[in-house]
């Protein structure tokens, strides 16, 4: 028998007026990725036989650099949210779940920072 109040039990376990945030941001990034993905796929298709100089010149163009950074940011944020749901669905034990979620978060943030830094370095040097 527990003496804790129902509110005490519920605290920290779920929605605190932010229950739809994850769902919503996944949709917002999805919508943003519609034009970005089309641009990305058809741009890269025309670069498959380009050499270092041509690809660097392409990335350095301001419109391309901005679009690439937006694509990397939106795609990795969208990926982070998706992978989180997969881990929550399939990783049973609480410990392994927390480790997997932390690992996924770190990898996504590192990838995002690295990708955006790489684009900036190419564009600004």
């Amino acid at each position, binding site marked *: 028998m527990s003496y804790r109040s129902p509110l005490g039990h519920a605290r920290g376990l779920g929605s605190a007026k932010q229950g739809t945030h994850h769902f919503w941001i996944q949709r917002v990034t999805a919508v943003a*990725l519609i034009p970005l993905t*089309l641009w990305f796929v058809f741009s890269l298709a025309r670069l498959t036989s380009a050499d270092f100089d041509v690809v660097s010149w392409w*990335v350095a163009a301001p419109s391309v650099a901005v679009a690439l950074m937006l694509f*990397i940011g939106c795609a*990795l944020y969208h990926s982070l949210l*998706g992978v989180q749901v997969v881990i929550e669905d399939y990783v049973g034990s609480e410990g392994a779940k927390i480790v997997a979620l932390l690992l996924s978060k770190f990898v996504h943030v590192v990838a995002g920072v690295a*990708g955006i830094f*790489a684009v900036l370095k190419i564009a600004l040097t």
Partner: protein
Amino acid sequence: MSTPATSKTTPQRPLSPFMIGPYYKPQMTSMLSITHRLTGLGLSFGAILLVTWLVCLASGVDCYNTIVPHLTAWYGKVVLVAFTWALLYHFCNGIRHLMWDLGKGLDMPTAEKTGWGVIVVSILVTAGVWALALATK
């Protein structure tokens, strides 16, 4: 007192059976749903490949020229075609999901029709993208 429920232990609530197994008949729509997840997961690795490529590009011509032969080799092309299709599949099926979020196309006949549409369009556009890639010299 046969089943004492305490807050310390997880209560034995009934669970619905896992989607893969003897309980559910495999259907086109459920297979597409699983494929959406699998392609999404695969694309997370694709994003890491994209970032690796960009970091190498930023590091200089030597690094770039060590990874590009792998991307243009037959196995690299297989991986890139697979990523192209995965991205386009996830893209098309993602739009299907967004339409469902708007409450459109939720009935079975429409869901099956749009499902076939996703399969056909993702394959055709993948072919088109690679035709463009191979035509661009």
